[in-house]
């Protein structure tokens, strides 16, 4: 009986601990998938329902499913607003050498450009500009801040 009670109490404590840790990690995990930012804190909108940016994993320039969805929305909006030209600004986080990051930012912005082009946006309307790690949106030195900074931002040029 006594043992049973002790076990029961321990069990409750364990459950409480699990619940606590779950809460603690939940806040970050809703904003990160792998290490790709999925939150909306820094996102601005080109038009209602058209987010201006996509995010990348560390050292990667591969578009995630969410990024492709965002870019399809941008493409649809660009098709409707055929006079708009854009600059794709590619960025990297601070955890890399300056020169490599310049190249990486360029590669990320071009990944977005290629995708927009496959959805019918002419390359004449798109220019690419890499900032490397020079223009972070979040000045923090932590994984969440870095994830917000690994991005390609679509900016209206006219």
């Amino acid at each position, binding site marked *: 009986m006594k043992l049973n009670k002790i076990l029961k109490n321990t069990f409750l404590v364990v459950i409480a601990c699990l619940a606590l840790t779950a809460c603690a990690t939940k806040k970050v995990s809703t904003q990160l998938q792998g290490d790709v930012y999925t939150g909306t804190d820094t996102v601005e909108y080109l038009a209602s329902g058209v987010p201006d940016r996509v995010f990348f994993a560390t050292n990667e320039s591969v578009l995630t499913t969410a990024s492709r969805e965002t870019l399809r929305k941008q493409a649809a909006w660009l098709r409707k607003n055929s006079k708009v030209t854009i600059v794709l600004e590619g960025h990297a986080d601070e955890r890399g050498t300056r020169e490599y990051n310049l190249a990486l930012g360029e590669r990320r912005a071009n990944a977005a450009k290629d995708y927009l082009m496959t959805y019918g946006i002419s390359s004449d309307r798109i220019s690419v500009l890499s900032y490397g790690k*020079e223009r972070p949106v979040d000045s923090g030195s932590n994984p969440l801040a870095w994830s917000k900074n690994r991005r390609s931002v679509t900016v209206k040029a006219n």
Partner: protein
Amino acid sequence: MKIYRFFYLLILSILPINATALIEVDITRGNLNPLPIAVSPLSIDENSRENFEKILKKDNIGDEISSVVEKNLKTSGLFNPLNKDAFLQAPEIANLKPRFEDWNLIKAQALITGKVKYVDEKLRVEFRLWDVLAGKEMMALAFTTVPTNWRRVGHIITDKVYERLTGEKGYFDTRIIYVAEEGPKTKRVKKLAIMDQDGANNKFLTLGNELVLTPRFNPTSQMVTYLSYFRNLPRVYLLDIETGTQEVVGDFPGMTFAPRFSPDGKKIIMSFAKDGNSDIYTMDLENRIVEKITNHPSIDTSPSYSPDGKYICFNSDRSGYQQIYIMKNDGSNVKRISFGKGLYGTPVWSPRGDLIAFTKLHKGKFYIGVMRTDGSGERLLTENFYQEAPSWSPNGRVLIFYRETKTDDKGEGFSAKLWSIDLTGYNERLVNTPVDASDPSWSSLLSN
């Protein structure tokens, strides 16, 4: 900068000496026992003192020049300049004939003496280096220059002393070009800046209207190549720091970056990024011919020539991650040389030819290290939260690089500073700059 042309270096006398019998400083190892050296203030007559005071607004230019020498020697980590309060002999007498017993008493092993004089509106300096234990003169030199060059006189004296005692060229009469930074991390304002190796004579070369990055000296002249975001078009530029004229390097339809000069100063090697791919190119500055050196769908960047110009080391992620490669200067024989754990970037070939300095990222830490040119003998000199971009002193004995601090939870507390460290891994030092700083590049010796 026309002042250099007024520089005359006259060798008074170099006495034949038995080198083995005299003091030597070993710079190949970390020096835990710096050589005790006495820098006697350069003596000055009253008339000269008054004239220089008028021109330079310095009370005693002899003392000032000695201080430059003393600070240089101390910073090198190889010498321990002794406290002047303990000196028994007056400067003017010491320069004629030191009483070696007196200098021996305060444990000085070497002694520098000298004098400055005002001659025809010029600054005339002579100095002598003495071996205290052997009781002999090791070197005597004199030179004349315009008075405003007085700090360079101090640097040249240090170079001569360093060379005489270590057997290798010095690195004191040199300058550092770097990027001065100000403002919040998300909106950094960056300017090109230049200063003497010891931080004196700092000067901003651009106004901060556009982002500028990675300035590098031409090893043969006072030209600089760098990246500027002028009109939001990131391009490699060439800047003549004597005239202030600048021009875009080449006519590329996209971003050019990561520029460096060839060792003869005749070419610029850099990356050109197009359609998501960065390759390495050169442009000949005389005939403007552009050559593509690498052709690979990966990122190829941070190229740096070997001192003989025959090879190029560079950074590529063709293996999947950033690694260091070398190739012949025509792009053939590409060979990966970094195989340690972690990512490698910013390879820079030593002016001595035998080593490549690099930045390494491993398990969330950044390292500055060196390896032989075949990738063997990797040695990490310093570990930190963030640091990168080493640049060699012209004698290949010291590296200067920049370091950034981690911000706190609110994103506050960011700074970027220049640091230097000896190739031995000892003598790590903060290099003072008026504002935050990054991307340093070390010039060659100015007086060669």
